[in-house]
């Protein structure tokens, strides 16, 4: 599972690069950049489904009921959103160039949110169930606001 998370982190980086290229593209060129983005996102989704399966198994094995609830909710929500993103990207033909760029901004924001949720919550949850060294500070789950100490 550790190796899979490392791979996913690299793929997230790659996806962020592609997102940046799409956002920098002129409206008339954007469509051409979306093919590689979709392919990368699709491959990433497949890797994540594998990770979710493995995470579910270790949570069950460790009796982590709370973890299973969180995993179930976050996996469902991110996968549901990923499906909607892919469906949008498979239906670009009818979209005029003038609409594509503003629509893409919504898609890019959604993709970044998916990556963010996974890095902040799902990866740390998986790592808690391995003998891995502590996750980097930016990957640790943030405590709920009621548990934070005021500076």
């Amino acid at each position, binding site marked *: 599972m550790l190796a899979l998370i490392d791979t996913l982190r690299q793929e997230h980086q790659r996806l962020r690069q592609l997102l940046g290229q799409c956002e920098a593209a002129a409206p008339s060129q954007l469509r051409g950049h979306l093919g590689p983005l979709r392919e990368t996102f699709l491959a990433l989704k497949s890797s994540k489904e594998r990770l979710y399966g493995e995470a579910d198994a270790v949570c069950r094995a460790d009796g982590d009921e709370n973890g299973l609830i969180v995993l179930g909710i976050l996996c469902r929500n991110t996968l549901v959103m990923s499906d909607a993103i892919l469906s*949008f990207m498979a239906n670009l033909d*009818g979209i005029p160039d003038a609409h594509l760029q503003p629509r893409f901004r919504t898609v890019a924001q959604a993709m970044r949110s998916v990556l963010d949720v996974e890095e902040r919550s799902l990866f740390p949850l998986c790592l808690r169930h391995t003998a891995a060294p502590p996750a980097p500070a930016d990957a640790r789950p943030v405590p709920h606001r009621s548990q934070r100490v005021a500076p």
Partner: protein
Amino acid sequence: MSRIPSTMDLSRLDSDARLRVLDGPLMERTPDPALQAVVEEAARTTDFPIALVSLVGSRIQFFRAQVGLPPELEAARATDRCSSFCQFVVAGERPLQVEDAEGDPSLPRELVERYGIRAYFGFPLRVGGQTVGSLCVIDVRARQLAAGSLEALARLAERASARLESLASSWAFASLGEGDRAHRAWLELVERQPLLSLSEQFSRGALSLPELQRALGVLAHLSGEAEK
């Protein structure tokens, strides 16, 4: 008090012409100061704790502007359409007044049971000749509104409609002739955004697990439908 007629035709909620209006800046989550001013004035004028500009979509009601929502609904900015009271304002194309939802079996129960909603007063919002949503005020106590407050709400709804019309015209949705499939795919993506927003806020520690679960309770239809 208004009761929802059992004969009310909800199919008009799904009319293509109506859903096509829900596009571009209308469905953006970026705050709009003009709409925010409307909901703040609506809450102040009526002394109700919650006021919303709610746009009723294909699967959800989307809160384009809001004041007074609990943190998880503020994060989601939506509930299932089928749980909403605003759907009846849109389907009926007229105001809805609910003084006490507790004893009204014609209303959906999710918001009453999970959030204790009792009073609801909503006025139609119209864009491009279509009824797209409701300006509403909500309270967890049974309430009545004086005629003067109802008139003020009606005027505020006209102001909100004018602002929504202006946002929609900047998008020029009708003139560009985008295909229906493309629009539906985009609307589906936008309407699932509340699930992701909730997950994001939970991941950032802004929502507890019980808050997340409570909000998912009023998005159960969206969540379940999306999973199929």
